[in-house]
């Protein structure tokens, strides 16, 4: 099998791209959600937060199935895709980003929400008495105070997207350079008994996961005393 080295690097590059784009999108979408959930007092906040947390419990096949239908020609994804002349968002990079955003959402929203809640109402009340507008208070008080939460959320969202498999297998179509991410490449190698390639990727993933978890612990240790 010639070209396997290229195949390996392509899938690694694609995975990192997917995780990076997903993390950026998640920070953009997840922050307002986390803020709303942290500030809200009503029971509905818990309902909304349960919805956000669903992917923690649902098997990826459930999300993959719904996504396949939603991204397809009869779903909203197909309608969106028709704007640029495509029929479906399945088998495409944007389709994978949508799937990953849903799938990794709780890993980003929850740490940020916790961080927003941790400092309580007091700093914002103080900001208000100093005549800071709510927007200004958000950017100059809440966000800096919640920095460890953002960091944790970003790292977890990135790492969880790198580790995604089931959804991509169901809606990806295994296209090198576009939807064949590392986890799917490993599955492919194992199906074809290419242990060597599978080993390289799997070993890399294990090392990466270890580094992420260790890194998270170190971040928490560094911020913990300051946060209290």
């Amino acid at each position, binding site marked *: 099998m010639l070209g396997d080295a290229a195949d390996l690097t392509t899938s690694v590059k694609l995975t990192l791209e997917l995780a990076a784009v997903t993390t950026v999108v998640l920070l953009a979408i997840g922050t307002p959600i986390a803020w709303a959930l942290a500030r809200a007092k009503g029971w509905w906040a818990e309902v909304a937060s349960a919805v956000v947390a669903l992917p923690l419990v649902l098997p990826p096949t459930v999300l993959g199935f719904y996504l*396949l*239908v939603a*991204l*397809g*020609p*009869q779903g909203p994804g*197909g309608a969106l895709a028709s704007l640029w002349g*495509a*029929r*479906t968002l*399945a*088998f495409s990079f944007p389709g994978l980003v949508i799937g990953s955003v849903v799938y990794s959402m709780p890993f980003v929203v929850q740490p940020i929400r916790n961080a927003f809640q941790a400092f309580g109402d007091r700093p914002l009340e103080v900001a208000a008495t100093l005549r800071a507008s709510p927007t200004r208070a958000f950017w100059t008080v809440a966000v800096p105070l919640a920095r460890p939460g953002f960091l944790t959320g970003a790292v977890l969202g990135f790492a969880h997207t790198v580790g995604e498999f089931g959804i991509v*297998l169901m809606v990806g*179509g*295994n*296209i090198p350079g576009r939807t064949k991410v590392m986890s799917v490449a490993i*599955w*492919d190698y*194992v*199906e*074809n*008994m290419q242990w060597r390639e599978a080993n390289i990727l799997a070993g890399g993933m294990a090392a990466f996961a270890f580094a992420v978890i260790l890194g998270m612990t170190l971040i928490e240790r560094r911020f913990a005393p300051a946060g209290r």
Partner: protein
Amino acid sequence: MRGLRVLTAGILFAALAAWGAKADDVPVAVAANFTAPVKEIAAAFEKKSGHHAVLSFGATGGLYTQITQDAPFEVFLAADEARPKKAVAEGLAVGDTLFVYSVGKLVLWSKSADAVKGESTLKTATFSKIAICNPTAAPYGAAAVATMRKLGLYDALKPKLVEGADISQAFQFVDSGNAEVGFVALSQLAGTSGGSRWMVPQDLYPAIKQDAVLLKKGANHEAAKAFLEFLKGPEAHAVIEKYGYGFDNPS
């Protein structure tokens, strides 16, 4: 406390029930293209012999990988000849039990009525996605690639290819409308009449001879041997034929 005890008993019972597979259960690994016919065959086999075939489906390559790693299968119904032969060569299967149980047929299929007209459909390629199954792990995928190569269209079509992990997923990509056309197995279209299809001529791809073999784990299991015998018999042949398969030695 009492609730806990009931719960523990329940879990133990469930574990035992799952564990204690009956002696006449025959675990069979089946290539995905043969899903529908083997279900019928297994039902007929059970009615006749009382043995129960437990079916696991997947791409031939994936099943083979599992077999090399000591998967508890006793019979292997592949979608090619290569992997069962390899299993014999590696001492994982019983050599003299090897036989061609069916010859598969490749079809280009679409859900819309006029999409597939024949070779010309591949040449004009007005579709945006064409589904196949993983060509290295699934023989029908290899046959689809061989067809496109023979027609000199592979490089042109490559950017439009989407791969299912096995032929069931390739079918599903077309069935869900996400791909307009796809190479599937004729057996998957049995009983459906809608859409449009093109039976790929036999001279465009190497014949998909599908081998069955008794695995080492079933070497001493009468029920496993009986299942393979049943697969050779007239009742099974009638089912296989109904799904559009051919035979190596027409009997």
